């Protein structure tokens, strides 16, 4: 009897400890989450109270909004370009940093730094000054006799330049790859070298398959982040030139805070939520074909 009461008390005390987090979750996550769903069926300009309009916002988005199509197109291209390149680059650096060299930990820290700084406004401003017409990058190219490129002012190039900013923030993926590489049993490589496999062959036949669970994790996390990318496009190009960097999050922001159509913006955010959910689902569904788990994925 006494024991049961004590256990019950422990449960309450446990709940009490996580109460600040639970309250935060309810106020800052769950409440906006459900309210935005409600607002997506309303006309709400923040000045007047919201009025219910049914599915009108969704109808308008899918049938009469060229901005939505453009934003979706630009964002898809951005995700398709930036995510694989970033992962490949992160893996490349992780391979280099997995070498057992003196002072390697310092290099690992240094290479992680861009990920801490990368999403900030200050770095976005720096990116603008680096890549503008008379910027540092073009000056360096000029010194090498290469003609300057309009990195941010040319509608055909600007999105790739923003993609570079994303690739530059490869640190978190790199750290995970590095941990994964260090977990690969050395006897696999030993067996490979006894069988006469080249380094390249061992990379593709041992390293890559053993890292596929981490590739899956990184792919999903980076894809989700890329779909919601905002800072770079907002600060550097503001969606221009000619809407060539008009990412979905920018469209959402514009509807919410330039046109003050909060209901419409809420509908857009729910559509993005569904898109990310579907793409994540597809990746998961196909993962059993290309992800290798040593234990067969049972744990």
């Amino acid at each position, binding site marked *: 009897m006494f024991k049961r009461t004590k256990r019950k008390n422990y449960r309450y*005390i446990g709940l*009490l*400890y996580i*109460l*600040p987090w639970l*309250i*935060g979750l309810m*106020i800052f996550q769950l409440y906006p989450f459900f309210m935005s769903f409600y607002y997506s069926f309303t*006309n709400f*300009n*923040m*000045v*007047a109270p919201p009025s219910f309009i049914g599915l009108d916002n969704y109808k308008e988005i899918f049938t*009469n909004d060229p901005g939505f199509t453009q934003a979706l197109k630009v964002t898809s291209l951005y995700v398709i370009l930036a995510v694989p390149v970033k992962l490949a680059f992160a893996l490349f650096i992780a391979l280099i940093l997995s070498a057992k060299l003196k002072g390697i930990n310092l290099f690992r820290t240094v290479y992680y730094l861009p990920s801490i700084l990368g999403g900030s406004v200050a770095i976005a401003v720096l990116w*603008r000054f680096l890549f*503008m*017409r*008379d910027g540092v990058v073009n000056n360096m190219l000029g010194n090498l006799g290469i003609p300057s490129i*309009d990195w*941010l*002012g*040319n*509608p055909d190039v*600007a999105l790739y330049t923003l993609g570079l900013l994303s690739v530059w923030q490869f640190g978190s993926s790199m750290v995970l790859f590095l941990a994964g590489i260090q977990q690969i049993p050395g006897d696999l490589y030993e067996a490979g070298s006894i069988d006469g496999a080249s380094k390249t062959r061992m990379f593709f036949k041992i390293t890559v398959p053993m890292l596929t669970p981490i590739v899956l994790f990184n792919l999903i996390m980076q894809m989700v982040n890329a779909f919601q990318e905002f800072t770079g496009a907002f600060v*550097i*190009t*503001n969606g*221009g*030139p*000619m*809407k060539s960097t008009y990412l979905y999050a920018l469209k959402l922001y*514009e509807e919410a*805070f*330039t*046109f*003050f159509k909060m209901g419409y913006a809420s509908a857009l955010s729910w559509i993005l939520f569904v898109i990310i959910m579907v793409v994540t689902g597809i990746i998961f569904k196909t993962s059993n074909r290309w992800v290798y788990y040593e234990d067969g994925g049972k744990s």
Partner: protein
Amino acid sequence: MRKQWWTGSLAVVMSAALIAGCSGGNGTAGSGEDNGGQVTLRFSWWGGDGRHQQTLEAIEAYKQVAPNVRIEPEYQGFDGYEQKVKTQLASSTSADIMQLDVPWMEDLTQSDFFLDLSDQSELSLDEFDADFLTNFSTYNDKLVALPSGVNAYALVINKTAADALGVPTDIEWDWETIYEEGKKLHERDSSKHLLLADHGVLMQDFNKFLMQRTGEQWVQEDYTLGFTQEDAVAALTWLDEAMRAGVYQPLGEADLFYGKTEQNPKWINQEIAMISAMSSTLLPLRSVFPEDVEVITALPVIAKDAKDTAVQVRPSQLYAISAKSQHPEEAAAFLNWLLHDAEAAAILGDVRSVPASSAAQQAAVDAGKIDPAIARAVEMGLANATGLLDNALSTNSEVTSILQDSIEKVAFGRATPEQGATELIAALERKLSDLQARQ
């Protein structure tokens, strides 16, 4: 057990603090009165460094005038200010006194966010031009805001650079002369341009071109267009040719500094001679030059056969007092001092262009605090303005965003002026009927 109690209590306290922190304030947050009868008022504005410094100095001086009033300044650049103020108003956390912009007022006056200033005995209104108050400060028969200064569109010219580049500065500019001079300059040196223009300035030039050609606002209050396909093609053709001839800096370069024009390296390096701007922005534009660089103002570009000059004079900004202010009388008294008092005028000078109050204007002139270039821009504006005012639709952000799309397509050579005009008219007509339906 004691440790559990202690940590458990801490969790309860943190939860209570979280809930208390998240509960919305009633009325303007931060305003209040402490035990000593001290009143705190929040005052928010946007601007550049010069405006911030002078306004802070004025707030400091007000401590001598009303020792029981403490003004809490909230200032930033223009970027994001509109969003912040609208969100604060919607959540009842706005400052007591707010600096606002004319194009936002139509939206903001849909609700009773602001005090009716005609009811405030602390405020003197006689020093303002009555038409100014009627046209820009009165909404739904309520005087909701007061003008900070008189702002006129003008050509801001770096005379030192213009002289060095062989650009005349003593002529009246029309669309032909500006095209010819810009073309000649760019032909002489392809790194130089006559005009600095981001998409905002290009849209403004397009509007002025149309207004001068038609004598009407480009979007009418009855949700119709004030121009024909032919008018739009003419305006876009001029723009297209000017862009190709290098009269303007390429849009892709200029737009990287949208909203912060003075940071454009070509302007700073004096490789561009002119910009079409409002007189209130002259100080930040000049602030990036060395002392010996002379900056002057001229009348904006006006077509030879213009039906309307399209020269506009409007308040630089507006000041409003929140209807939820807990201290409306003290807020009105501070605003009155800021707008009319000789000491305030001498401190603020022309940081918000020429003061709108005649008393403050005189005091600022007497103190030698009005820049001759700003004074000239306002003088010329007042002499040439023909009274064609921007209506709410012509500055509506959804409408202007359509214009931006069409102008960008033409400016980047991705659409001919004919295609641009056709797309523009079709998209505008759709949007206007949508906006009308929402009314």
